[in-house]
Structure formats: C-alpha cells, structure tokens
C-alpha cells in the first residue's frame, strides 16, 4: 500500500540508528565520526543516533581495511543486524585500502567483498562536514521503498 510505504519512508529517513565497527583502521576516521557527534557538527539533531549495538542498528558504518581477524566476524555482525539495513563505508580504507594496499600488508581490502556497501565517503580521513553531507544526502534514499525493492 503506498500510503503505508510513504509513512515508512518518512519515518525511516528521519530516525536512523547507527552502529559503527572498526575493522582495522588508524583511528583517524573513527575520531572524525566522534567529532560529528560533538556539539559543533551535531549529528543527533537530524535524528541520527550513534550507539554501538548491532542488534538495534539500521545503518552500519564500516571503518578500516579488513584485517585477518575480522574476516569472519564482519560477516557475522552484519548478519546480526535486523532488516532493513544498509552499510556505509567511511574513509579510504574500506574502499581501497588507503596506504595499506601494498605488497606485504596483512589487510584484504575492499570491504565490498565481504558485505554489501550502499554508500561511500572517501577521504583520509573525511572531514566531519563531508561525512555529514554524505549521510544527509543518502538518508532519504537508503531505505526508500525498501519493501517494494525486496519483492
């Protein structure tokens, strides 16, 4: 029913619960995500609540290039998140491995090979303004007509 779907779209674009997972990064992007929570670039005013619980999350922020220990655990955490869900890659590490994509490294980027990624924010690290504008532009589109796309 389209009215129900439009209500769902409206609610899902305004109230998003986010959980972030660090699969082996330098912590720079992590700190920039925390800076988004700071009162200066307040991300909670848009209804985006960052806690750290995969069971209650809608969006998973993936940070870091995949280290050997996380190869199986990343997939199991992704499976724990209830539908509807999406993953957003923050920083250069999940996209391409940043400077770690050289011979002799233990990481196996990109994260796209392990879980499906819906959006990417490039940068090393991306500025909080860039993270926020990317998330805000993606928020109404990510869960739009989710049920109709599934069927």
């Amino acid at each position, binding site marked *: 029913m389209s009215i129900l779907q439009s209500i769902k779209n409206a609610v899902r674009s305004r109230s998003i619960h986010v*959980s972030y*997972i*660090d*699969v*082996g*990064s*330098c*912590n*720079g*992007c*992590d*700190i*920039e995500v*925390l*800076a988004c*929570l*700071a*009162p*200066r670039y307040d991300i909670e005013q848009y209804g985006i609540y960052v*806690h*750290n*619980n*995969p069971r209650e999350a809608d969006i998973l922020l993936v940070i*870091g*290039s995949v*280290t*050997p*220990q*996380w190869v199986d*655990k990343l997939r199991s*955490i992704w499976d724990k998140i209830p539908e509807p869900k999406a993953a957003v890659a923050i920083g250069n590490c999940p996209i391409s491995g*940043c*400077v*770690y994509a*050289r*011979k*002799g*490294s*233990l*990481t196996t980027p990109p994260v796209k090979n392990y879980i499906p990624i819906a959006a990417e924010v490039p940068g*090393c*690290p991306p*500025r909080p303004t860039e993270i926020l504008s990317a998330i805000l532009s993606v928020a109404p589109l990510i869960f739009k007509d989710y049920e109709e796309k599934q069927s």
Partner: protein
Amino acid sequence: MKKTVDVSIPLGPMHPCWKEPVRLKCETAGERVLHTEVELGYMKKGIERIMRGRPWQEVMFLAERVCGICSVVHNMVFIEAMEGISDIAVPPRAAYLRVVANELDRIASHLIANFSYCYTIEHETLAMYLLNTRETVLDNLERLTGSRINTAYMIPGGVRFDLLPEDAAVMLADLAKVEDELKRYVRIFETGPLIGLRSRGIGCMSRVDAIRAHTVGPTARASGVEDCDLRLRHPTYRALDFEQVTRTEGDNFARVMVRFQEVFQSIDLIRRCVDTLPAGRIRGGGLCRAGEISYSGEAPRGELTYTIKTDDFGRVVDIAIRTPSIMNIEACAHYMVADAASIADVTSTFISSDPCIACNER
C-alpha cells in the same frame, strides 16, 4: 590445581565505551573481578612490513597512519630519526614550528582521552564539552598545516608550510578561550561528587608497581615516577624551559588530572613558541643516507621509539616501532584492575590508562 571462577565475562571487541576493538576477559567471583586478560590482534595490519624498501616520502605517511590520534608525533619522531641518521640540521624556525604542531596535537589527544574517560563514567555533558573544545584546537591545526588529522607537516630538513602572523594571532586568541573553558571544566571535574566516587581511589597503582611494569607517559607520571618525560631531553623543549607534570596518588583521578595539567602546560609552551619564533628559513634541505638509529620521542601516551636502518639512497631497510600503549595496557591489566570491585571499575580504569590499540598493533 583447578581454578574456580564464577563467570568469565568478555568485554568484547565491540563495546560502546571503546572506539577500537580489543577484548578484555574478566574472571569474576560474584561481583569482584579477580583477574583480567587483554586480547589484542584485531587491528594488526603489518605496517612495518609494508614500510620495508620504501623511501621516506612514502614511509612518512605510513608512520603517520599507525595511529590517527597521535599522528603528528609519529611524523615527528620518524623524521627526527631520519635526520639523526643522515646528520641533517633543522633551521631554528622550523624546530619551533614543529613544537607548535606537536603541542597542538598533544592537546587534541589529551582532550580525546579525557572525553573517553568522561563518556565511560557516563558524564556525557562534560564529555561533549571537552569534545567541543577540541574542535577549536583542530581548527588551528588546520590553519597551520592544511588538514585536521594526518597532517604530514614535517619533512627531513624542516616543515612544509610557514605560519603567518595573522594566523598566529588567531591561534593565540583561540588558545586563550580554550584555557578559560578548560579551567571551568577542570573545576567541574575536581568538585563533582559522583565523578569523585568513580575516580578517586579506583585503579590505584603505586610508584613501585609503575616502575616494575615499565609504564610510560601520563600513566606513569600520575603514579609519581620522576624523569620519565622525554621532552626533557629534546633540545628545543629544553630551550623553552620544559618541566614535567607529576602527581602521586596513582588512581583514575590522578591520571585524568595529569592530562588536564599537561594541556595547560602545552598552551603555555605554544604561547612561548609563538612569541619567540625566530625568523629564517623553514627548510634546510638534505638527502637521507645510510645508517642505523634508535630514536625516542614523547607521544601523548608515553615514550615512542623508532629503530630504523636505511640504505644508501634513503630507503628503509628495517624498521621497528615501539609504541607506548604496549606497556601501559599490560600494566593496566596486571596492576590496576587486579581485584577490582566490579566490572564498571574495569572499564573506567582501562580507559583512564588511555589505550590506543591501533598504536599497539600497527
């Protein structure tokens, strides 16, 4: 002999309090935590292996990305080690600008550490105040170097960009504002009764234990260890009359207060640097040559050592990085949380020792 514990609780890789994945296995008997074991390995990327055979302009960026919070000091220690191998002299203006960038990064790192501690104690108001203050500091770092984190400001022979007088004036005005705000926040932290309940007397580590466990940095200085600040041996800091900050209690409260006092000291150092900034060139040039060196510097978390061996054309043949968190985390697990009263104390003590897991397992 069979060991009996009630429950072994894992404080797992994903936890709301810590930003990096690390596992703490706590063995409990009822509510008391008897023994804690730290399990690392979730962040191992093999950075030292990637660095082999590369010239300084690529290794410098890898060294910075060992840890994103203290990235400027990794840059500085690596570059100063390369200069030590090849006997490259740094012009005095560049040395002072390096100190300015280093101290700005140190303020940012200490504010993040204290934010982390206040967030763990669930005092979210003070935590957000501190994070907001950090934004002003990062603004100034951006004005000086061009980016907030992972700045890549120092190169062998000097620094990359110069500091304009109008930017210096804005920096000093911002730092005065930061100092005023921080005085208020330190007063809130010192006099808050609930903060005191969760910090004073929790996670005590005596001076003898601190020396035996080889702790470094503010964790050691809060337990009363003297002469463990490597900035006392650096020529530029000695010219600026640097003195170490020490406290004697050795509990969570002392560690957080040591970091606050170091922030005030850093603001003072930056003011002295900017006021006595010598004129001159900012780059002295110099090619990297063959040699071996083991150089230590003072990161915000303690003593950072780079052992480098290069070949004739400046490429790194062998490198070993020893970061401060390795010692501090083990000291925390064995001495500070031994026989803690509850799991809540374990998390707050662990965060108060300022672990940086990415530094730990590059």
